[in-house]
């Protein structure tokens, strides 16, 4: 096994398991090499995943931060690199650089109510937060998850969603944009679910991850509820080639999303998000 000499050199871990989540999303579970431990990560951090000879893309870590036995990423097949990653078979080498980036503010949020708002694949980077909250339930106030997807078939982590719904003291609401008759849940944008959630707007920390448009309208609705921009945290997405602040691709105004983010307190990016093409 190689020891990376250079921050641009990946390490390779064998793929242990592939878990089909939806028609175009799989979770890849990698295992540490014999005698080695997985590097630790904080919820919200991401890795650069490399498909041998094809390319490298940023993917959030979607597993349990307490679990040191394996490393999980949930990937949607959208193009060349994600497709190649999802073709990997058991024991084949998955190239990894990381973890990178600033995590969700779990320490600062201790004692407060927590609201997670996820859209589509945006649930993946929030799943480690859910594991953490459930493991340390007594350290937080009320907790809630609002999750929106296009169709019922696009919902990630079905079984876990069911399990989380049954956790007392964890408010889980799922909504879809379009659904057939067999869908018994909510239909419409995630913000429609806000009034159904019990929490103290003055003492809540919100973590949002999803398409930028969802972030825009959700933050507006939250501010309308009387929350301040300092209570909201968003995870941002931009093209990334290095993840170490030197390729310039991920710039978002003065920020490098790879190292100053991807998680930002909303007041730090609010003005930029209101501009087009930043």
């Amino acid at each position, binding site marked *: 096994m*190689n020891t990376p*000499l*250079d*921050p*641009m*050199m990946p390490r*390779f871990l*064998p793929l242990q398991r592939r878990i089909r989540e939806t028609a175009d999303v799989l979770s890849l579970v990698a295992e540490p090499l014999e005698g080695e431990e997985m590097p630790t990560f904080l919820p919200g951090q991401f890795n650069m995943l*490399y498909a*041998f*000879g*094809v*390319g*490298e893309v940023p993917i959030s870590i979607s597993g349990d931060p307490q679990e040191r036995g394996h490393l999980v990423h949930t990937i949607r097949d*959208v*193009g060349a690199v994600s497709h190649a990653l999802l073709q990997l078979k058991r*024991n*084949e*080498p998955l*190239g990894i650089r990381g973890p990178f980036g600033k995590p969700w503010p779990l320490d600062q949020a201790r004692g407060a109510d927590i609201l997670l708002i996820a859209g589509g694949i945006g649930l993946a980077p929030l799943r480690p937060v859910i594991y953490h909250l459930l493991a340390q339930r007594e350290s937080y106030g009320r907790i809630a998850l609002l999750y929106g997807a296009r169709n019922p078939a696009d919902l990630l982590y079905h079984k876990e969603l069911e399990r989380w719904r049954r956790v007392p003291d964890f408010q889980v609401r799922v909504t879809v944009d379009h659904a057939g008759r067999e869908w018994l849940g909510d239909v419409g944008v995630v913000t429609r679910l806000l009034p159904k959630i019990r929490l103290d707007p003055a003492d809540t920390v919100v973590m949002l991850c999803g398409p930028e448009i969802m972030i825009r309208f959700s933050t507006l609705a939250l501010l309308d509820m009387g929350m301040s921009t300092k209570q909201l945290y968003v995870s941002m*997405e*931009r*093209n990334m*080639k*290095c993840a*170490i*602040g*030197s*390729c*310039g*691709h991920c*710039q978002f*105004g*003065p920020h*490098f999303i790879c190292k100053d983010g991807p998680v930002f307190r909303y007041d730090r990016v609010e003005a930029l998000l209101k*501009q*087009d*093409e*930043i």
Partner: protein
Amino acid sequence: METVPKAPVVIAEKALHTLVCELQSAGYRVIGPTLRDQAIIYDEIDSVADLPQGWTDEQQPGSYRVAKRPDMALFGYTVGPHSWKKFLHPPRLRLWQASRTGNEVSFSHDETPSQKYAFLGVRSCELHAIAIQDQVFLQAGHEDVGYRQRRDDSFIIALNCSEAGGTCFCASMKTGPQATNSFDLALTELLSEDRHEFLVEIGSQAGADLMHGIASREASAGDLETAEKLLAQTAANMGRHLDTQGLKERLQENPEHRRWDEVAARCLSCSNCTLVCPTCFCTSVEDTADLAGDTAERWRRWDSCFNGEFSYIHGGSVRSSTKSRYRQWLTHKLAHWVDQFGSSGCVGCGRCISWCPTGIDITEEAAAIGSAASPPEDAS
């Protein structure tokens, strides 16, 4: 680089030849200005004879021309289309090679020893540009190993500018024209009808060691005064000027200024400005494989925020309009850079002005959008 306080000396023009030879025998590839294809570029030189002696350049927005000088100055021009980043941060670089056998991947290392460069004629703005790129590539925890090696191995002979070019504004950016530190040696060309000599300041132990083998005399008060006067004259004759007071804030507060639309109408989004800029550092990564898919390479090449794919994320480019790309470039250079790295990203070298095919002038655009004299229009 440590500072070695040693009194400046004066050497004759021909001693410069010796200096170049000494560097070569110490294993350095000496890189200096040389005339090629109607421009003064940076490339390996065999001897001082390769320098563009007796040539100068004339620069204006969208225009660069070389011309004969009335004298035999060795450094009587300013900066051309190349910068030292070409050597320290190469346009294309293989980062690694790997091969795969079954499920095992192993990296092979490039065995070629890294090049030791001696840079001859590094202007003050360029010293600042190198220091700025150091901030990018030598970040704690993520140091670029190859860059560190090239940087540590380089020997820098700075040059104090005896003349300012038509697009220079280092005086505004406080990056010149005098080289004040971060060099091994610094030259000032002292040229008049009856003399052709160089004042040499010594900036490091390596510089001092090299000077041992070179015939020199102690600089007189008169020599120092002549050099000082030259520099004062250069500073007073900058082709361009930029008022940086409050510039960062005003640029960051005016993303919707109508001037962005006006400049976008002239900008070709050709990326010339970012390629000639000595501080622009952006790169893209290319991963390739052989046909069988058993060996792979990672290459890094210069990229530019003016390219469409630069900001591509699934679904399209974030910055699809020329306006947004020009705004990214200018705002990054003159404003965001300060937040990111603690200094402006512009050293006032003027290259982007001279090499812009439509003559867009960063100092003019910045003044229109961000100077105290022009209150924000359309502020939103």
